[in-house]
């Protein structure tokens, strides 16, 4: 089950905690992977570690030209693109009344607009081959909201609406389009929280712990697999029970 041999996958944000785990997991199932992020050396290091069936395709997702060049670069490297994982994301938290235009715009650009452009570039090849998997990493806060994160929550909720609409458009062509909504996961993003903040978060998590990047990666392997052909337009919540939707 969940064999990805012969499949070609692009993972954005592969320098980050969750993205690296996703890239490793897809690779372990046999997929060829293209790793993207802005830190080329970190991507190279991961590529060296994975060994075969790996390509490095850096791109700065706040630069639209670079965004539009990413899928063609991945397709040129791998010959095709079967699995797209839009995982890169940033936060620029601030309370609503203090939220700056730039904070709003940066988060929307990197977390939502780049998603749209990357999907648009990838869909053509998938339509031609009548097969494809698009997976977006959204967030529990895109569904529940979160104080201090109006920009981030808006972008993550936007992804969910976009993915559902795209899922409806291309379902008849055997392309599935889904999102994974992590809760609180141990990564650099959550390392920034202090102990007190972590404790107060855990009160709301029935599982009583933070999740791991590997637990997000498992969900991505499932959605990428042939076995998940009949699941589309969905959001898989991986959050230890902190929100049950």
């Amino acid at each position, binding site marked *: 089950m969940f064999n990805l041999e012969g499949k070609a996958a692009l993972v954005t944000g592969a320098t980050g905690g969750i993205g690296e785990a996703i890239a490793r997991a897809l690779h372990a199932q046999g997929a060829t992977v293209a790793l993207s992020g802005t830190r080329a050396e970190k991507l190279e290091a991961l590529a060296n570690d994975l060994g075969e069936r790996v390509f490095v395709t850096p791109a700065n997702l706040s630069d639209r030209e670079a965004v539009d060049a990413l899928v063609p670069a991945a397709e040129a490297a791998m010959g095709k693109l079967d699995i797209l994982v839009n995982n890169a994301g940033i936060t620029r938290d601030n309370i609503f009344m203090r939220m700056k235009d730039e904070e709003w715009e940066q988060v929307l650009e990197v977390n939502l607009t780049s998603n749209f452009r990357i999907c648009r570039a990838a869909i*053509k090849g998938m*339509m*031609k081959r009548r097969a494809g998997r698009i997976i977006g990493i959204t967030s529990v806060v895109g569904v529940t909201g979160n104080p201090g994160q109006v920009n981030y929550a808006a972008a993550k909720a936007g992804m969910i609406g976009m993915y559902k609409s795209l899922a409806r*458009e*291309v379902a*008849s*062509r055997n392309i599935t389009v889904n999102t994974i909504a992590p809760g609180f996961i141990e990564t650099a993003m959550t390392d920034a929280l202090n102990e007190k903040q972590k404790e107060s978060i855990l009160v709301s998590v029935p599982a009583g712990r933070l999740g791991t990047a590997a637990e997000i990666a498992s969900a991505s392997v499932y959605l990428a697999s042939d076995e998940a052909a009949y699941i589309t337009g969905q959001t898989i919540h991986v959050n230890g029970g902190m929100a049950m939707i």
Partner: protein
Amino acid sequence: MSDIADRVKKIVIEHLGVDAEKVTDNASFIDDLGADSLDTVELVMAFEEEFGVEIPDDAAETILTVGDAVKFLEKNAG
């Protein structure tokens, strides 16, 4: 009938699964041949592949009938 028209009609017949006699010059992909909007996008991609041309979005939007496609390709292909 030109060679280009033959090739266009063949693609339309195969892609939309319609009878050859329905694929006339005036036949509209959507109104007469039962295509949906996604089919029209795929037809354009199939024409691009067959004729080795790039059909930009604004041109693609004007290709509504079999004849439109033939005319465009006669002008721009080869």
